């Protein structure tokens, strides 16, 4: 009986003690790697070609909550904003045959799409809005990617307090999805600065941190291991999953 009581007590104590134990363990990158072995199966199971659910206009939230940082404060972005984005250029380069530099009117000449989808934040909240903009794939195709290009890296104009720029990445199948947009409009009007003006990525089948705001350069690469922390994105470098569909 005593052993049983001990076992029960140990389980209870174990539950309360998990936090501090895990805190100690978390300082080990090997452990992080070990826990991360489920990322591959998760991506394989949930990634796929399926499209996100689209909603009727009645589902649109009156206020679209801002995810991530508010408007970048640096001078370059302020100047761009002051020009009403007439000086904005979207660069597409890297492993491509024909690098592009597109103004907003040029971007608007690519195939457009509007979709009412739910934005799911990694923190747990959700909000529904209508996104409009250019399909990503035709823009990439116009730059004629080399066969060696396996990932699409999105470089952004915002930096954190340490000066690290936001970036994100998709693989080619994700970039190919018909809901993956270079969004320029939210709820029928041009994006405002807090929501990523003038151009942000929209990937409705993955969590919000994939949908990078203030995109100014799209780079096609064979691997992203040489970029910033090497994990394929700003939050990925801080331990979040590269496949953000879970």
């Amino acid at each position, binding site marked *: *009986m005593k*052993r*049983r*009581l*001990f*076992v*029960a007590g140990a*389980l*209870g104590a*174990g*539950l*309360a003690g*998990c*936090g*501090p134990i*895990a*805190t100690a363990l*978390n300082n080990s990158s090997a452990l*992080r790697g*070990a*826990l*991360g*072995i*489920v*990322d591959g*199966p*998760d991506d394989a199971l*949930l*990634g*796929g070609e*399926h*499209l*996100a*659910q689209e909603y009727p206009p009645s*589902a649109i*939230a009156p206020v679209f*909550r801002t995810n991530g940082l508010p408007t970048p404060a640096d001078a370059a972005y302020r100047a761009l904003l002051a020009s009403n984005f007439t000086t904005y250029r979207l660069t597409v380069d890297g492993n491509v045959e024909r690098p592009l530099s597109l103004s907003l009117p040029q971007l608007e000449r690519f195939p457009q799409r509007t979709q009412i989808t*739910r934005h*799911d*934040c*990694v*923190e*747990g*909240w*959700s*909000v*529904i809005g209508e996104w409009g903009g250019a399909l990503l794939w035709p823009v990439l195709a116009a730059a004629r990617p080399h066969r060696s290009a396996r990932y699409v890296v999105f470089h952004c104009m915002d930096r954190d307090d340490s000066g690290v720029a936001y970036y994100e990445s998709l693989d080619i199948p994700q970039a190919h999805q018909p809901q993956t947009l270079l969004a320029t409009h939210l709820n029928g009007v041009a994006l405002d600065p807090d929501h990523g003006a003038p151009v942000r990525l929209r990937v*409705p*089948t*993955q*969590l919000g941190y994939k949908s990078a705001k203030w995109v100014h350069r799209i780079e096609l690469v064979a691997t992203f291991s040489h970029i910033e922390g090497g994990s394929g994105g700003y*939050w990925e470098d*801080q*331990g*979040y*999953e590269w*496949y*953000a*569909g*879970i």
Partner: protein
Amino acid sequence: MRIAHWVWALAFAVLVSSGLQIFNAAPYLDASNASNPARRVLSIGSPQDGVGTTTIFGHTFVTTGWLGWTDDGLGEQSARAFPGWVTIPSYQDLADGRRWHFFFAWVAVVCWIAWLVSSAVKGNLRKMLLSRADVRNLWPMQAYYLRLRKTPPPYDEYNPLQKAAYTAIVFIVAPLIVLTGLALSPGADAIAHPLTVMFGGRQFARLWHFVCMLALIAFFVLHVIQVATRGVVNQMRSMITGWFVEEAPPA
């Protein structure tokens, strides 16, 4: 079966703790698809420094020290829904909380299947499941516990109420907590949107996921009390056979 039970128990402890860590990133639950404060069932917050509050169905309680204003896992008190001593990691770290949660979610599912298969093969499963005769005896058993009846109804290894609890946990709550968890994933939502709709939307699924956790914790508490009292109360010996006696790991 023994191994599956104990590994599952470990996984459950980690899943609860890392789940509370994840909850802390958005410490509220809405009965809706997108977040909607008008349909908020539970929220935990800190209206001002030094005060923690918990609001359930619109009723607010001061829960300073326990919920809302708690230890931040780094030795300080701060605005934090669940305290550091129940979360993994103890300090606020959503990224690592998610890693622990997703890894042990796989462990728990594999254990659940292994336990089902092995206990079915051994024949224990049949003894634990609620049968038609047990349903008739549910009330007499409860009446016995309430001292409205002098003798319990006849049963073999597990009494009808135990069987009802085991059946509900293994075949209803366990699958539900997996499915509601999946409904939170935008990838799974794209594959099986009807699943999310069935739970009332993504935020509602988050609420059900939390409720399933509460049900599992309630079961765990009763389960442990039964185990702990078994030797003390001799006449109840036949009620709780097997389970812990044979499954205690070598100390």
